[in-house]
């Protein structure tokens, strides 16, 4: 069992959630703020089995794209989505 913590820019998040819902993938949505862009983004908590991770990554990558922003002199690429896959010790559904 894994937990995917996906940090997604706000402009893509509605499409991402709709596609996840269409594919019966449950997600919890937390509103958050980015460090660099200081703009709002959204953190999604998605609990899944190991084998589903790649399909979820594909679903999300179809809906988001990264963009370049100017930070002082050099350019910083800010990903449309940033995913951390974390191992889960136990998962209990009550």
């Amino acid at each position: 069992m894994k937990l995917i913590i996906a940090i997604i820019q706000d402009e893509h998040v509605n499409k991402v959630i709709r596609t996840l819902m269409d594919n019966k993938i449950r997600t919890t949505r937390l509103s958050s703020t980015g460090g660099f862009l200081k703009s709002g983004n959204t953190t999604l908590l998605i609990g899944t089995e190991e084998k589903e991770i790649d399909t979820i990554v594909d679903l999300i990558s179809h809906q988001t794209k990264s963009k370049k922003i100017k930070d002082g002199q050099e350019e910083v690429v800010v990903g449309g989505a940033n995913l951390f896959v974390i191992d889960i010790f136990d998962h209990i559904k009550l």
Partner: protein
Amino acid sequence: MKLIIAIVQDQDAASLIEDLTDHKYRVTKLTSTGGFLKAGNTTLLVGVEEEHIKPVVDLIETNCKTREITTSLLTVTMPGDTYIPYPLEVKVGGATVFILDVERHIRI
């Protein structure tokens, strides 16, 4: 790859985020509420490689360590009476840090 989850006080969060972005660390800020004090606080997610854990924790410490400040407690005795500011030592700041192991990090 590790994910640092830092729960800090609201008043320290702004300076900490500024510090982290100056050092090119990506951070995500979640607003959260403390269980014990029921006071609002801030949860930060910072994804870093193993060797960057120490510098990030040092940054957190310099910005958020528990410290004593003196505030004044305005004593109101009688209407029309003057407010007598009463100096008070108060503990503020502090941070709780969880470091999680990240199996895969995907940036799209």
